[in-house]
């Protein structure tokens, strides 16, 4: 391969490569967005435990603590009662 040829090969590789990377990732953006929408439709009722946890642990005064314990005990009772 002669020198100027190598240079034009390099430029071709750059244009081709960069173009392809962009096309590929653009398609990935599109398909990801579509996928998220589709999935979102099917399980929109999914619980979000991560969002709830810190709220509970933040406002733990002694009074609320008591209240919480009674609620939990009641819940466990009901749960056992179901069986």
């Amino acid at each position, binding site marked *: *391969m002669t020198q100027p040829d*190598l240079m034009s090969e*390099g430029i071709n*590789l*750059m244009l081709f490569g960069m173009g*392809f990377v962009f096309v590929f990732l653009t398609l990935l953006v599109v398909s*990801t967005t579509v*996928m998220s929408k589709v*999935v979102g439709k099917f*399980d929109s009722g999914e619980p979000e435990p991560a969002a709830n946890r810190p709220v509970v642990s933040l406002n733990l005064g002694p009074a609320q603590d008591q209240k919480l314990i009674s609620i939990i005990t009641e819940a466990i009772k009901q749960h056992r009662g179901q069986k």
Partner: protein
Amino acid sequence: MDMVNKLEMLWHGSGVYNMTFGQFVMMVVCVGLLYLAIKKNFEPLLLVPIGFGGLLANIPEAGLAYSSVEQAIHMAKPEVLEALGQVLGVAASDPHALAEAYETSNAELHQAAVNTANDLGYSNGVLYSFYLAVIASGAGPLIIFMGVGAMTDFGPLLANPRTLFLGAAAQFGIFATVLGAVGLTSMGVMDFSLAQAAAIGIIGGADGPTSIYVASVLAPELLGAIAVASYSYMALVPLIQPPIMRALTTQKERQLQMSQLRHVGKTEKIVFPLVLLVLVAILLPDAAPLLGMFCFGNLMKECGVVDRLSDTAQNALINIVTIFLGLSVGSKLVADKFLQPETLGILSLGIVAFAIGTACGVLMAKLMNRFGSIPINPLIGSAGVSAVPMAARVSNKIGLEANPQNFLLMHAMGPNVAGVIGSAVAAGVMIKYVTAG
């Protein structure tokens, strides 16, 4: 008299007597790598095995890094050279010509030469065996990529898919460097083929396993220098990137706060690697080894039913492979292969690749800000070069400097993992282009 002869023999067999200047220099370089890894904490997980492998490879006469044929040629017993010369069809008198013929021989002659050397009682050095098993086979980098997949959380990327564009823009560093390497060749400064230029460019992908994979496919002879450059610069990300990021952004842009990322459901995270794999299968089968293993690792993590496999992939397995990969890369740091003017070229082109990639990521983020509705802090653009998670941490740090309430880490993880995908795609394109042309 006999005693003196024996002593002389011992002396001639010692390391000090046989040490060449190149080997000495390489040992100093390897000790330097170890120093950087241990004392300065530069990518120690890789630079410790690489540095130590390099030390082992340069022990005179031990030949740990040489194949059986290279050992046989090095020992230079006349009858052995004669036999190898016959197999390879070269005059046996010149060991250099013999070694050259062995390097360039086709698979059949290559195997015949190996068989001859084995018959004559020479065997592969242990580091060379590691190299054959881990790098020449292509297995090592791919297993590491699987582990990286199992460690990657695509949540931030899925919450804001547009950050994929930042990962794409930062790959410009790769191709600009290819152009640089080719340009140096045209000017007659260096002598790189297109395949070698492509392998050097991938340093700009800032992704160790991808660099090693591409180098092993396109330019195995440059592998040592490319791997060392790649991992050293990844360690230097906190030094290389900030000046470029500061130069390209205004104080106001750096202070920009981004909106909270939405919650990403489990199903989305499970489906994403499959979507990615389908796209790879449709568009770019050449990237399938890298991205296929990556998707597999990620699916194991997200599906939640094979925690044991996922745990092994991201801990035990990746650690085992890292040890052997590091030693194998170290075996490529032998003096006669590493101490070449090309190495300097590779090291300087590599840092240029990093700089250009960073700059393009930042500029792309500014461009997207101009046209998009959701504000994007340009600092996260630099994370598009991959180098997970170092580059994202750098974005976060610079963001906090400008505005103490500005936590960019999670936002920067999006372009960061996009960069991994982007450099794997770029790797696939280059392998395709170079091997087809």
